[in-house]
Protein backbone atom coordinates (compact mmCIF):
# COMPACT_ATOMS: atom_id res chain seq x y z
CA UNK A 1 0.00 0.00 0.00
CA UNK A 2 1.31 3.48 -0.90
CA UNK A 3 1.53 6.10 1.81
CA UNK A 4 -0.12 9.48 1.33
CA UNK A 5 0.77 12.47 3.45
CA UNK A 6 -2.69 13.87 4.23
CA UNK A 7 -1.27 16.73 6.32
CA UNK A 8 1.13 17.69 3.54
CA UNK A 9 -1.67 17.60 0.94
CA UNK A 10 -3.70 20.10 2.96
CA UNK A 11 -0.56 22.08 3.86
CA UNK A 12 -1.06 21.88 7.64
CA UNK A 13 1.17 20.75 10.51
CA UNK A 14 0.58 17.31 12.05
CA UNK A 15 -0.66 18.94 15.24
CA UNK A 16 -3.07 21.31 13.46
CA UNK A 17 -6.44 21.68 15.20
CA UNK A 18 -9.81 20.97 13.58
CA UNK A 19 -10.37 24.62 12.64
CA UNK A 20 -6.99 24.92 10.93
CA UNK A 21 -7.69 21.76 8.95
CA UNK A 22 -11.13 23.02 7.91
CA UNK A 23 -9.77 26.42 6.83
CA UNK A 24 -6.93 24.82 4.85
CA UNK A 25 -9.41 22.54 3.10
CA UNK A 26 -11.85 25.35 2.31
CA UNK A 27 -9.11 27.51 0.86
CA UNK A 28 -7.94 24.69 -1.41
CA UNK A 29 -11.51 23.69 -2.34
CA UNK A 30 -12.16 27.22 -3.61
CA UNK A 31 -9.12 26.90 -5.84
CA UNK A 32 -9.41 23.32 -7.06
CA UNK A 33 -13.07 22.27 -6.94
CA UNK A 34 -13.88 21.01 -10.47
CA UNK A 35 -17.05 23.13 -10.55
CA UNK A 36 -15.17 26.38 -10.02
CA UNK A 37 -11.61 25.66 -11.14
CA UNK A 38 -10.02 26.05 -14.53
CA UNK A 39 -6.74 24.47 -13.40
CA UNK A 40 -5.74 21.61 -15.69
CA UNK A 41 -5.38 18.95 -13.00
CA UNK A 42 -8.10 20.32 -10.72
CA UNK A 43 -10.10 17.10 -10.66
CA UNK A 44 -7.21 14.92 -9.51
CA UNK A 45 -5.99 17.52 -7.03
CA UNK A 46 -9.43 17.97 -5.54
CA UNK A 47 -9.92 14.23 -5.18
CA UNK A 48 -6.65 14.02 -3.27
CA UNK A 49 -7.46 16.88 -0.92
CA UNK A 50 -11.02 15.77 -0.20
CA UNK A 51 -9.68 12.30 0.63
CA UNK A 52 -7.24 13.95 3.05
CA UNK A 53 -9.99 16.12 4.57
CA UNK A 54 -12.47 13.24 4.89
CA UNK A 55 -9.92 11.43 7.04
CA UNK A 56 -8.49 14.31 9.07
CA UNK A 57 -11.79 16.01 9.94
CA UNK A 58 -13.06 12.88 11.67
CA UNK A 59 -11.29 12.39 15.06
CA UNK A 60 -11.57 8.60 14.91
CA UNK A 61 -10.20 8.36 11.37
CA UNK A 62 -7.49 10.92 12.13
CA UNK A 63 -6.32 8.89 15.12
CA UNK A 64 -6.24 5.76 12.96
CA UNK A 65 -4.25 7.63 10.29
CA UNK A 66 -1.76 8.98 12.84
CA UNK A 67 -1.19 5.44 14.10
CA UNK A 68 0.11 4.48 10.65
CA UNK A 69 3.25 6.48 11.44
CA UNK A 70 5.08 8.88 9.15
CA UNK A 71 6.39 7.75 5.79
CA UNK A 72 7.47 9.42 2.58
CA UNK A 73 4.58 10.11 0.19
CA UNK A 74 4.34 7.26 -2.30
CA UNK A 75 6.45 4.97 -0.10
CA UNK A 76 5.26 1.37 0.16
CA UNK A 77 4.30 0.54 3.71
CA UNK A 78 2.26 -1.82 5.86
CA UNK A 79 0.15 -0.72 8.80
CA UNK A 80 1.71 -1.70 12.18
CA UNK A 81 0.81 -5.26 13.32
CA UNK A 82 -1.81 -4.18 15.86
CA UNK A 83 -3.35 -1.51 13.60
CA UNK A 84 -5.82 -3.91 12.03
CA UNK A 85 -6.98 -5.07 15.45
CA UNK A 86 -7.74 -1.56 16.61
CA UNK A 87 -9.09 0.03 13.48
CA UNK A 88 -9.94 -2.59 10.89
CA UNK A 89 -10.95 -5.76 12.63
CA UNK A 90 -10.92 -8.71 10.34
CA UNK A 91 -8.70 -7.03 7.80
CA UNK A 92 -5.67 -9.20 7.21
CA UNK A 93 -4.11 -8.42 3.82
CA UNK A 94 -3.44 -4.80 2.90
CA UNK A 95 -2.01 -5.46 -0.59
CA UNK A 96 -5.23 -5.16 -2.59
CA UNK A 97 -6.52 -1.95 -1.06
CA UNK A 98 -5.76 1.73 -1.29
CA UNK A 99 -5.07 3.93 1.74
CA UNK A 100 -8.41 5.72 1.26
CA UNK A 101 -10.17 2.32 1.28
CA UNK A 102 -9.01 1.73 4.85
CA UNK A 103 -10.79 4.85 6.04
CA UNK A 104 -13.84 4.24 3.87
CA UNK A 105 -13.78 0.83 5.56
CA UNK A 106 -13.81 2.44 8.98
CA UNK A 107 -16.92 4.43 8.07
CA UNK A 108 -18.58 1.35 6.63
CA UNK A 109 -17.88 -0.64 9.74
CA UNK A 110 -19.20 2.12 11.99
CA UNK A 111 -22.37 2.22 9.89
CA UNK A 112 -22.79 -1.49 10.29
CA UNK A 113 -22.24 -1.40 14.01
CA UNK A 114 -24.64 1.47 14.54
CA UNK A 115 -28.14 0.40 13.76
CA UNK A 116 -27.61 -1.68 10.65
CA UNK A 117 -28.55 -5.26 11.41
CA UNK A 118 -26.57 -7.96 9.68
CA UNK A 119 -29.58 -9.04 7.65
CA UNK A 120 -30.75 -5.57 6.68
CA UNK A 121 -30.94 -4.85 2.92
CA UNK A 122 -28.51 -2.13 1.84
CA UNK A 123 -28.43 -0.60 -1.65
CA UNK A 124 -25.13 -0.88 -3.56
CA UNK A 125 -23.12 2.29 -3.99
CA UNK A 126 -23.05 4.24 -7.27
CA UNK A 127 -19.86 4.23 -9.33
CA UNK A 128 -18.54 6.89 -11.66
CA UNK A 129 -16.22 6.52 -14.64
CA UNK A 130 -14.85 8.79 -17.34
CA UNK A 131 -15.30 7.45 -20.88
CA UNK A 132 -13.27 8.92 -23.75
CA UNK A 133 -14.63 8.31 -27.24
CA UNK A 134 -13.94 9.59 -30.74
CA UNK A 135 -16.23 11.93 -32.67
CA UNK A 136 -17.29 9.04 -34.94
CA UNK A 137 -18.18 6.86 -31.96
CA UNK A 138 -20.28 9.71 -30.55
CA UNK A 139 -21.99 10.29 -33.89
CA UNK A 140 -22.89 6.67 -34.61
CA UNK A 141 -23.10 5.31 -31.07
CA UNK A 142 -20.69 2.65 -29.85
CA UNK A 143 -20.11 -0.28 -27.54
CA UNK A 144 -17.42 -0.02 -24.91
CA UNK A 145 -15.79 -2.33 -22.39
CA UNK A 146 -14.96 -0.76 -19.07
CA UNK A 147 -12.71 -2.23 -16.47
CA UNK A 148 -13.13 -0.57 -13.10
CA UNK A 149 -11.75 -1.42 -9.73
CA UNK A 150 -14.35 -1.92 -7.02
CA UNK A 151 -14.04 -2.23 -3.26
CA UNK A 152 -15.66 -5.44 -2.07
CA UNK A 153 -16.44 -6.61 1.45
CA UNK A 154 -15.60 -10.12 2.57
CA UNK A 155 -18.20 -11.95 4.67
CA UNK A 156 -15.76 -11.68 7.61
CA UNK A 157 -15.67 -7.88 7.38
CA UNK A 158 -12.40 -7.48 5.48
CA UNK A 159 -12.21 -5.74 2.14
CA UNK A 160 -10.32 -5.96 -1.12
CA UNK A 161 -10.24 -4.40 -4.58
CA UNK A 162 -11.69 -6.53 -7.35
CA UNK A 163 -11.98 -5.88 -11.10
CA UNK A 164 -15.48 -4.80 -12.13
CA UNK A 165 -16.14 -5.28 -15.86
CA UNK A 166 -19.00 -3.56 -17.65
CA UNK A 167 -19.95 -3.77 -21.32
CA UNK A 168 -22.21 -0.94 -22.29
CA UNK A 169 -23.80 0.58 -25.37
CA UNK A 170 -23.38 4.35 -25.73
CA UNK A 171 -26.33 5.80 -27.67
CA UNK A 172 -25.69 7.86 -30.80
CA UNK A 173 -25.51 11.63 -30.57
CA UNK A 174 -23.81 12.02 -27.18
CA UNK A 175 -21.90 15.26 -26.70
CA UNK A 176 -18.75 16.22 -24.85
CA UNK A 177 -19.42 16.57 -21.12
CA UNK A 178 -22.70 14.63 -21.24
CA UNK A 179 -23.43 12.20 -18.42
CA UNK A 180 -25.08 8.80 -18.87
CA UNK A 181 -26.36 6.20 -16.43
CA UNK A 182 -25.94 2.44 -16.65
CA UNK A 183 -28.64 1.12 -14.31
CA UNK A 184 -27.63 -1.61 -11.89
CA UNK A 185 -23.95 -1.58 -12.85
CA UNK A 186 -22.65 0.08 -9.69
CA UNK A 187 -21.80 -1.73 -6.45
CA UNK A 188 -23.68 -4.88 -5.48
CA UNK A 189 -26.53 -4.45 -3.03
CA UNK A 190 -26.16 -6.20 0.33
CA UNK A 191 -28.76 -8.66 1.68
CA UNK A 192 -31.03 -8.24 -1.30
CA UNK A 193 -30.71 -4.45 -1.54
CA UNK A 194 -30.76 -3.02 -5.08
CA UNK A 195 -27.47 -2.74 -6.98
CA UNK A 196 -26.05 0.76 -7.45
CA UNK A 197 -25.83 2.54 -10.80
CA UNK A 198 -22.79 3.41 -12.89
CA UNK A 199 -22.53 7.04 -14.00
CA UNK A 200 -20.49 7.75 -17.12
CA UNK A 201 -18.82 11.06 -17.79
CA UNK A 202 -18.48 11.29 -21.58
CA UNK A 203 -15.50 13.03 -23.17
CA UNK A 204 -15.64 13.33 -26.95
CA UNK A 205 -12.40 14.08 -28.78
CA UNK A 206 -12.42 17.04 -31.19
CA UNK A 207 -12.73 16.19 -34.88
CA UNK A 208 -10.32 17.88 -37.31
CA UNK A 209 -13.22 18.90 -39.62
CA UNK A 210 -16.50 19.05 -37.70
CA UNK A 211 -17.36 21.40 -34.86
CA UNK A 212 -20.31 20.50 -32.66
CA UNK A 213 -22.99 22.86 -31.38
CA UNK A 214 -25.89 21.03 -29.78
CA UNK A 215 -27.14 18.68 -32.49
CA UNK A 216 -25.74 20.82 -35.29
CA UNK A 217 -22.36 20.44 -36.94
CA UNK A 218 -20.23 23.06 -38.67
CA UNK A 219 -17.59 22.49 -41.34
CA UNK A 220 -15.46 25.05 -43.18
CA UNK A 221 -16.06 25.22 -46.93
CA UNK A 222 -13.20 27.02 -48.69
CA UNK A 223 -14.08 28.32 -52.17
CA UNK A 224 -12.04 30.04 -54.89
CA UNK A 225 -13.36 33.54 -55.77
CA UNK A 226 -14.61 32.37 -59.17
CA UNK A 227 -16.40 29.36 -57.60
CA UNK A 228 -18.21 31.68 -55.23
CA UNK A 229 -19.14 34.09 -58.03
CA UNK A 230 -20.15 31.59 -60.69
CA UNK A 231 -21.47 28.83 -58.42
CA UNK A 232 -20.24 25.25 -58.41
CA UNK A 233 -20.81 21.75 -57.10
CA UNK A 234 -18.41 20.39 -54.49
CA UNK A 235 -18.02 17.03 -52.84
CA UNK A 236 -18.35 17.62 -49.10
CA UNK A 237 -17.54 15.04 -46.42
CA UNK A 238 -20.22 14.45 -43.79
CA UNK A 239 -20.03 12.01 -40.84
CA UNK A 240 -22.52 9.75 -42.65
CA UNK A 241 -20.64 9.83 -45.97
CA UNK A 242 -19.73 12.36 -48.67
CA UNK A 243 -22.48 14.36 -50.39
CA UNK A 244 -22.53 16.69 -53.40
CA UNK A 245 -23.28 20.24 -52.36
CA UNK A 246 -24.51 22.81 -54.86
CA UNK A 247 -22.99 26.22 -54.22
CA UNK A 248 -25.27 28.88 -55.76
CA UNK A 249 -23.80 31.73 -57.84
CA UNK A 250 -22.98 34.85 -55.83
CA UNK A 251 -22.17 32.97 -52.59
CA UNK A 252 -20.53 35.25 -50.02
CA UNK A 253 -17.87 34.56 -47.41
CA UNK A 254 -19.38 33.77 -44.00
CA UNK A 255 -22.59 32.40 -45.51
CA UNK A 256 -23.83 29.13 -44.03
CA UNK A 257 -25.06 26.50 -46.49
CA UNK A 258 -27.37 24.13 -44.66
CA UNK A 259 -27.41 20.38 -45.23
CA UNK A 260 -30.66 19.45 -43.59
CA UNK A 261 -30.62 16.40 -41.28
CA UNK A 262 -26.88 15.79 -41.70
CA UNK A 263 -26.04 16.71 -38.09
CA UNK A 264 -26.15 14.59 -34.95
CA UNK A 265 -29.16 12.46 -34.09
CA UNK A 266 -29.98 12.12 -30.42
CA UNK A 267 -31.85 8.90 -29.75
CA UNK A 268 -35.13 8.84 -31.62
CA UNK A 269 -35.24 12.64 -31.95
CA UNK A 270 -34.95 14.65 -35.16
CA UNK A 271 -31.47 14.97 -36.64
CA UNK A 272 -29.59 18.25 -36.42
CA UNK A 273 -28.17 19.99 -39.48
CA UNK A 274 -24.71 20.27 -40.99
CA UNK A 275 -23.72 23.83 -41.85
CA UNK A 276 -20.99 24.46 -44.44
CA UNK A 277 -19.37 27.76 -43.50
CA UNK A 278 -18.15 29.54 -46.64
CA UNK A 279 -14.62 30.94 -46.74
CA UNK A 280 -13.24 32.61 -49.83
CA UNK A 281 -9.61 31.62 -50.36
CA UNK A 282 -7.45 33.75 -52.61
CA UNK A 283 -4.48 32.27 -54.49
CA UNK A 284 -1.25 33.88 -53.29
CA UNK A 285 0.84 32.87 -56.26
CA UNK A 286 -0.43 34.03 -59.65
CA UNK A 287 1.54 34.10 -62.89
CA UNK A 288 1.59 36.98 -65.39
CA UNK A 289 -1.22 35.59 -67.51
CA UNK A 290 -3.48 35.26 -64.44
CA UNK A 291 -2.57 38.76 -63.27
CA UNK A 292 -3.60 40.08 -66.67
CA UNK A 293 -6.97 38.35 -66.29
CA UNK A 294 -7.48 39.88 -62.83
CA UNK A 295 -6.66 43.35 -64.23
CA UNK A 296 -9.08 42.83 -67.05
CA UNK A 297 -11.74 41.86 -64.48
CA UNK A 298 -10.93 44.89 -62.30
CA UNK A 299 -11.31 47.25 -65.23
CA UNK A 300 -14.58 45.80 -66.48
CA UNK A 301 -16.26 45.46 -63.05
CA UNK A 302 -18.13 48.24 -61.26
CA UNK A 303 -18.36 46.18 -58.04
CA UNK A 304 -17.49 48.28 -54.96
CA UNK A 305 -17.17 46.14 -51.79
CA UNK A 306 -16.78 49.33 -49.66
CA UNK A 307 -19.73 51.30 -50.94
CA UNK A 308 -21.40 51.16 -47.51
CA UNK A 309 -18.35 52.67 -45.77
CA UNK A 310 -18.67 55.96 -47.58
CA UNK A 311 -22.44 55.96 -47.06
CA UNK A 312 -22.39 55.15 -43.32
CA UNK A 313 -19.52 57.53 -42.53
CA UNK A 314 -21.50 60.61 -43.63
Amino acid at each position, binding site marked *: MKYKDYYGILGVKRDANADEI*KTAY*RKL*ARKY*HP*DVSKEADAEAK*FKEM*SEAYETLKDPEKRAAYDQLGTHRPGQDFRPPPDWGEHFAQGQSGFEDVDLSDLFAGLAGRAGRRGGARADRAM*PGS*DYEAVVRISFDQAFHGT*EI*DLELSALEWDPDGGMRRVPH*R*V*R*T*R*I*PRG*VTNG*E*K*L*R*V*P*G*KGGKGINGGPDG*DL*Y*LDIEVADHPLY*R*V*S*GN*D*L*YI*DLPLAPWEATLGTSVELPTPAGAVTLRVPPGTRAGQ*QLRLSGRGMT*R*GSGAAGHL*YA*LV*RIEVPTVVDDAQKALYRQLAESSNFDPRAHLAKEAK
Partner: protein
Amino acid sequence: MIAPLQDAVRFDSITEVTWTQLVKASGMDEAELAELVRYGALEPRDPSAPTWTFESHWLLVARNASRLRRDFDLDPHGVSVVLSFLDRIEALEAELRALRAQVG
Protein backbone atom coordinates in the same frame (compact mmCIF):
# COMPACT_ATOMS: atom_id res chain seq x y z
CA MET B 1 -17.04 -15.03 -19.53
CA ILE B 2 -18.31 -12.12 -21.59
CA ALA B 3 -20.37 -9.65 -19.60
CA PRO B 4 -23.83 -8.93 -21.06
CA LEU B 5 -24.22 -5.71 -22.99
CA GLN B 6 -26.15 -3.07 -21.08
CA ASP B 7 -27.56 0.17 -22.48
CA ALA B 8 -26.27 3.46 -21.09
CA VAL B 9 -29.25 5.78 -20.74
CA ARG B 10 -29.52 9.52 -21.15
CA PHE B 11 -30.78 12.06 -18.69
CA ASP B 12 -33.59 13.81 -20.51
CA SER B 13 -37.00 15.39 -20.14
CA ILE B 14 -38.89 12.27 -21.27
CA THR B 15 -37.84 9.67 -18.73
CA GLU B 16 -39.41 10.05 -15.31
CA VAL B 17 -37.81 9.41 -11.93
CA THR B 18 -39.56 9.11 -8.59
CA TRP B 19 -38.79 11.10 -5.45
CA THR B 20 -37.37 7.93 -3.87
CA GLN B 21 -34.99 7.44 -6.80
CA LEU B 22 -33.93 11.07 -6.59
CA VAL B 23 -33.22 10.82 -2.87
CA LYS B 24 -31.24 7.60 -3.33
CA ALA B 25 -29.19 8.88 -6.30
CA SER B 26 -28.31 12.13 -4.54
CA GLY B 27 -27.30 10.45 -1.31
CA MET B 28 -28.70 13.53 0.42
CA ASP B 29 -30.96 13.79 3.41
CA GLU B 30 -34.63 13.72 2.30
CA ALA B 31 -35.57 16.83 4.29
CA GLU B 32 -32.69 18.81 2.78
CA LEU B 33 -33.60 17.71 -0.72
CA ALA B 34 -37.20 18.82 -0.06
CA GLU B 35 -35.80 22.18 0.99
CA LEU B 36 -34.14 22.46 -2.44
CA VAL B 37 -37.55 21.84 -4.04
CA ARG B 38 -39.02 24.66 -1.93
CA TYR B 39 -36.25 27.02 -3.11
CA GLY B 40 -36.99 26.07 -6.73
CA ALA B 41 -33.59 24.44 -7.24
CA LEU B 42 -35.36 21.17 -8.10
CA GLU B 43 -38.62 21.21 -10.03
CA PRO B 44 -41.11 18.34 -9.73
CA ARG B 45 -43.45 17.79 -12.69
CA ASP B 46 -46.39 18.70 -10.49
CA PRO B 47 -45.36 20.30 -7.18
CA SER B 48 -48.90 19.88 -5.81
CA ALA B 49 -49.02 16.12 -6.51
CA PRO B 50 -49.09 13.89 -3.39
CA THR B 51 -45.88 12.17 -4.52
CA TRP B 52 -43.36 14.05 -6.61
CA THR B 53 -41.98 12.83 -9.93
CA PHE B 54 -39.20 14.48 -11.93
CA GLU B 55 -37.78 14.58 -15.44
CA SER B 56 -34.67 12.41 -15.26
CA HIS B 57 -32.20 15.28 -15.83
CA TRP B 58 -33.04 16.52 -12.31
CA LEU B 59 -31.21 13.46 -11.05
CA LEU B 60 -27.94 15.03 -12.18
CA VAL B 61 -28.87 18.30 -10.48
CA ALA B 62 -29.62 16.43 -7.26
CA ARG B 63 -26.26 14.66 -7.42
CA ASN B 64 -24.53 17.99 -8.07
CA ALA B 65 -26.36 19.46 -5.10
CA SER B 66 -25.18 16.67 -2.85
CA ARG B 67 -21.58 17.10 -4.03
CA LEU B 68 -21.64 20.86 -3.43
CA ARG B 69 -23.21 20.33 -0.02
CA ARG B 70 -20.43 17.98 1.00
CA ASP B 71 -17.42 19.56 -0.73
CA PHE B 72 -18.12 23.14 0.38
CA ASP B 73 -19.98 22.45 3.63
CA LEU B 74 -22.96 24.44 2.29
CA ASP B 75 -26.47 24.55 3.68
CA PRO B 76 -29.37 23.86 1.25
CA HIS B 77 -29.91 27.56 0.57
CA GLY B 78 -26.23 28.04 -0.29
CA VAL B 79 -26.45 24.97 -2.52
CA SER B 80 -29.45 26.41 -4.36
CA VAL B 81 -27.60 29.67 -5.03
CA VAL B 82 -24.48 27.88 -6.33
CA LEU B 83 -26.67 25.65 -8.52
CA SER B 84 -28.24 28.69 -10.16
CA PHE B 85 -24.76 30.11 -10.87
CA LEU B 86 -23.63 26.79 -12.34
CA ASP B 87 -26.75 26.78 -14.49
CA ARG B 88 -25.87 30.22 -15.85
CA ILE B 89 -22.26 29.20 -16.48
CA GLU B 90 -23.47 26.15 -18.38
CA ALA B 91 -25.81 28.27 -20.53
CA LEU B 92 -23.00 30.75 -21.27
CA GLU B 93 -20.59 27.94 -22.13
CA ALA B 94 -23.15 26.43 -24.51
CA GLU B 95 -23.53 29.82 -26.18
CA LEU B 96 -19.74 30.19 -26.43
CA ARG B 97 -19.46 26.71 -27.95
CA ALA B 98 -22.15 27.57 -30.50
CA LEU B 99 -20.40 30.82 -31.45
CA ARG B 100 -17.01 29.13 -31.71
CA ALA B 101 -18.50 26.41 -33.91
CA GLN B 102 -19.92 29.07 -36.22
CA VAL B 103 -16.77 31.18 -36.37
CA GLY B 104 -14.43 28.28 -36.96
